[in-house]
């Protein structure tokens, strides 16, 4: 049920490995043919220390780590009643194949519009790498479509 007391709730931290094969498959699936996303030598030649993760790849790390629908379960909202309204990424440092990120998600805000016909849940997730370097912040708006 809708309970704004959940604003500020922090979920347990999660770990997610950045897998070379998953980056290559992800890049291929979006039509990205730059070899830096599949060949270490090409990445190094382009000035990267390793194969970089595509920009929106951190969102997939959350998916694979089972983070994406925690708020739905908490609020008892069926996933098909919701849509992804907005997505934000702030990038602080680069993410590479072989990294292991630690992430933590929290509920940043909950509010209603149109007399409750639309409900918005804003989650924020910070990711750091294995060296404690702040990699990125994700902010996701989940919109609940009522009636």
């Amino acid at each position, binding site marked *: 049920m809708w309970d704004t007391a959940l604003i500020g709730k922090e979920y347990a931290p999660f770990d997610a490995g950045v897998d070379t094969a998953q980056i290559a498959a992800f890049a291929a699936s979006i039509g990205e043919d730059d070899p830096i996303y599949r060949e270490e030598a090409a990445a190094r030649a382009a000035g990267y220390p390793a194969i970089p993760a595509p920009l929106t790849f951190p969102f997939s790390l959350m998916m694979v780590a089972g983070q994406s629908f925690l708020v739905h379960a908490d609020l008892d909202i069926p996933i098909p009643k919701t849509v*992804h309204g907005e997505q934000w990424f*702030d*990038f602080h440092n680069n993410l590479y194949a072989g990294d292991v990120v630690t992430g933590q998600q929290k509920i940043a805000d909950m509010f209603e519009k149109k007399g409750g016909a639309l409900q918005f849940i804003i989650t924020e997730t910070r990711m750091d790498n294995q060296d404690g370097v702040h990699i990125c912040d994700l902010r996701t708006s989940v919109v609940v479509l009522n009636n």
Partner: protein
Amino acid sequence: MTKLTYDQITIGDTLPPVEIGPVTREDIAAFARASGDPSPIHLDDEIARSSGLPGIIIHGMFNMAVLGRLLTDWAGQTRIKSFSNRFAAMAVPGDTITCRGKVADKSDLGGKNLVDLDIEAINQKGDVLLTGKAVIALS
């Protein structure tokens, strides 16, 4: 990687567009596997219809990932400071998605050379699928 410099950039400059499509069901299934999102509304027409959709839809995060290519093609991966979009409309199999952007502002306040971009993704009918913003740091 493109050698962009701050001084080269003028407000109103447009980015080379990125186009993908027509996006097939196989493309959607491949993204579902690669991105870790096997939600049935992207894979199963019957379940998609029972959710009130005309049939399966392309992942919004697929569209956003392609919009990300607009940024990395132009500026390279390491210069992108922020990237966001609103999911304005859904895309379906057979759609061709075109991503485009333009320089909305630039600022060197505080010794940081930042370029603000307005970006969007549209389908072949001109419907806006995504509307967003990005900030790029240049030397």
